[in-house]
């Protein structure tokens, strides 16, 4: 494979240095090993120059210092579940693999904080907190498989974010190895640290400003009661209108999830989730909080569904019934996947009231690009995740899917929404940045990167269109 101009060449001397820092077996450099680090959950691939496993802040700092001295770029990577290509080493640089840095450092119930290392799985956090009666609210669909470091990088969301907020609302402090290898603390257990909110800036920076090595999380008391209901609709408009009606009525459900008819049929084909196969849309609505008043609120919500022509509302009376209602939503991804060779999940946000119009627009994009499309939404947030079905082995289909993804983002931008709800910009959406931002806005974005990483060594070629363009063609 030809190297792109400016690509990193990892020398034997540098490898020796890295081995000295992390141990011989913790540096991968042979092609056979590197091949398994040329991908994440996005479509494109790029081969790194080496992979380094780190286990402590000191090691991360040492490795970054060495790379900085050598002028070699690097990419922090957790579990590689990124959907926008954020962990691809487009310059052929060194991947710093954080997955082994996964210890809990402090569970501080009194202060509603928890300190963890970035390699910890998102779901493990809530599992550890469960005995204390607390949880970590951001719950991305990949929470079983994604790490907190990645959640911080992408400012991950999830169904519960409608009520509880995204990662950035739940991270209050970070220990960061800066791109030159210096270690700094941003924020802390206390709120309102004097000076600029670097924690807020760092969350969602997609690994381009440094490497988080410790994360202070805000943890939340587990709700006393949960009430789940499934509403079945004959028209997706009615489902969308129900969502708006619920919000307008002043209700703040914990989740407001929506699936379209395509997904429903896929689900019913693979399992019995008890959803009529001819339904056009379903909503999964969940209330949480105090047990008192829950019944009344559930009734109000059901009432709003009925006022919007719902065909049927089912309320879970037991935990088993609750799981049954969620079964379809949780199995939706797998069900759709079974209908296709491959899929690409797009991600954008629109103002909630624009959802019905956006859904029509997405269907039109599918038609225009000759692609089947399945729709899942975090409807409360106006966050849509159309899944485009295709065959990865067909280059033409791949092109069409990438184009359709951008079409969706254009649509979201036109609706006054955002071009990335929770998957980040990465490689995938860099060209969409200009849909949202002007030239001068982009200049300010560049300043952020330059302030942290003037040598452009930390996850180069991501987020900013100019940087992505510089490395175009290095992926396959």
């Amino acid at each position, binding site marked *: 494979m030809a190297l792109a101009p400016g690509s990193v060449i990892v020398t034997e001397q540098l490898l020796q240095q890295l081995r000295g820092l992390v141990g011989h077996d913790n540096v991968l450099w042979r092609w056979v090993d590197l091949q398994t680090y040329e991908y994440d959950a996005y479509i494109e691939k790029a081969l790194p120059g080496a992979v380094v496993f780190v286990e402590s802040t000191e090691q991360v700092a040492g490795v970054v210092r060495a790379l900085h001295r050598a002028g070699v770029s690097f990419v922090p990577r957790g579990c590689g*579940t990124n959907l926008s290509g954020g962990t691809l080493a487009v310059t052929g640089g060194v991947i710093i693999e954080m997955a082994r840095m996964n210890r809990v450092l402090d569970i501080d119930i009194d202060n509603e904080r928890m300190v963890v290392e970035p390699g910890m799985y998102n779901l493990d956090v809530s599992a550890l907190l469960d005995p204390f009666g607390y949880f970590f609210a951001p719950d991305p669909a990949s929470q079983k498989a994604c790490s907190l470091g990645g959640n911080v990088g992408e400012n991950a969301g999830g169904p519960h974010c409608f009520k509880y907020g995204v990662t950035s609302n739940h991270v209050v402090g970070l220990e960061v190895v800066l791109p030159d290898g210096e270690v700094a603390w941003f924020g802390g257990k206390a709120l309102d640290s004097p000076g600029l909110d670097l924690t807020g800036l760092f969350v969602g920076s997609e690994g381009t400003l440094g490497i988080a090595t410790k994360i202070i999380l805000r943890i939340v008391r587990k709700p006393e009661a949960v009430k789940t209901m499934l509403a079945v609709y004959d028209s997706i408009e009615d489902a969308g209108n129900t969502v708006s009606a619920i919000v307008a009525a002043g209700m703040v459900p914990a989740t407001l999830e929506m699936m379209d008819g395509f997904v429903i049929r896929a689900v019913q084909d693979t399992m019995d989730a008890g959803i009529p196969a001819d339904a056009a849309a379903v909503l999964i609505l969940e209330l949480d909080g105090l047990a008192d008043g829950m019944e009344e609120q559930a009734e109000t919500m059901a009432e709003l569904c009925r006022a919007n022509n719902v065909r049927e509302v089912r309320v879970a009376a037991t935990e088993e019934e609750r799981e049954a209602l969620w079964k379809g939503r949780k199995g939706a991804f797998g069900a759709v996947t*079974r209908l296709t060779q491959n*899929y690409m999940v797009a991600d954008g946000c629109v103002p909630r009231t624009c959802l019905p119009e956006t859904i029509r627009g997405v269907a039109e994009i599918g038609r225009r690009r000759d692609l089947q499309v399945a729709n899942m939404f975090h409807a409360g947030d106006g966050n849509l995740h159309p899944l485009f079905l295709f065959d990865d082995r067909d280059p033409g289909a791949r092109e069409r899917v990438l184009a359709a993804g951008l079409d969706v983002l254009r649509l979201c931008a036109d609706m006054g929404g955002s071009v990335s709800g929770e998957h980040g910009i990465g490689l995938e959406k860099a060209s969409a940045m200009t849909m949202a931002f002007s030239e001068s806005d982009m200049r300010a974005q560049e300043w952020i990167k330059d302030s942290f990483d003037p040598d452009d060594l930390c996850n180069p070629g991501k987020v900013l269109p100019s940087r992505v363009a510089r490395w175009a063609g290095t992926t396959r």
Partner: protein
Amino acid sequence: MDSEIPAGLLALHEQVAKCGKCGFCQPACPIYRTTYREGHVARGKHALMRNIIEGETVLQPDLRDAFDNCLLCRACTDSCFSDLRTDRLVVAFREAYAGRFGRSTLQRAIFRGLLPYPRRMKALVRVAWIARAAGLDGVAARLGLLDMVNPKLRKALELREGAPGMFLRERLSRPAANGKGWRRGRAATNREEVRGRRGATVLPPIPESRSGSGDGPGTGMRVGYWISCGYNYMLPEVGEATVDVLRRRTGASVEILENSCCGLPAYGYGDLAGARSLARRNIETLGDLSRFDAVVSECGSCSGHLKEYPELLAGDREFAPRSRRLAAKVRSFSEFLVEIGVSGSQTPRAAVPGPTDRAAGDAAQGGPVVRPLVVTFHEPCHLGGRFQGVVRQPRELLRALPGVEFRELRDADSCCGAAGSYNMVNPAVSGAILARKMENVAATGADVLVTECPSCMLQLSLGAKRAGSNVRVVGISELIAELQHPASR
């Protein structure tokens, strides 16, 4: 380039290209949770497979590490959106590697010349035990021979003082010579004349003296008892307990089958031809299956693999139907007991003294206090949800045992790291997987760790020894025999 790729692999292209690289296989994979290396998890293997098939890379020795580092435990397949059967893909690639680079003559000798022949196996194992007794186990181990034949054996050598006095098959065939008390004095009457195949041993049900009747829910049934290599050569007492419980609790008569190795080790090495020939040989040996109501094994690996014979022999005009008939009769021990209705609802036969808690007792009343026996269960991969779906049954049996408090083991269904020969491929990782398993065991506070597979049993015993734990590792039939037929022990 394409011409170098075995056709069998090309056919897998569609499957491997389906991998969406979502990464959900990672948290499930015991090896990944230890090494955190992509090459060790399904996603990385799919990437390599795809690169091989698409000609980006070739079948080269260096890539083998990725395919060797798989427990075939199917934890990944369980969480795969695309429903990929990574274990099968790995076996296909192991086979391709063997096809390309050859299998060592030793491996060939073992899979083709040894495993099918119980007599030869027996002789070899005897030699190994003698070497061990003579302090020569280092020599034997260095040969690598023991691992290859059966990694269980090496572990047994490490764990045990001496060889079992007699292998299971001999013990079961010569009840009079058996040293165990439970059949003492009855041996002569317990022999039933051989019916059917040459010289097969058929043991009649044992009536329970206290209840005065031998009737069990399986009265009149005939069960074929499948002897697994692990119990045969290393843990014969478990096999004896299995047969004992079958005879006492079900009311069925038990025929000791003349089977050879089920073929799982060969399959795991990607020696599909060897595995198929063992499967055919076993089907032939078992002969007419109509005489059995069930073929039972307490080895989760054996019963799991037997149930997959139809898939293994799918293209075989003669043996595919026969393998389906066999698979339909195969039951794991606990599965069989629960299925025919031998469950815990049966009353305990005797008051069982539990372990004493001296410290607490002394403080309270100045004497030891009997507390329930705390029991937990390790679910063997080949037994549990991902292979046979036998999940509920062993737990049900254990919960019903007198004086037992059953505690669920965290990640009970995750592989213990034995996985056939994996401890030879990567001893450090296997050890780390085992250590995590033992941490979870320790967290339950269990006195007894029960399982239903000899390979797991030996691995867990090794784990207990390494962890300095005094948890007792037993087969499920052993504990049942011990607690429900204490008088007979």
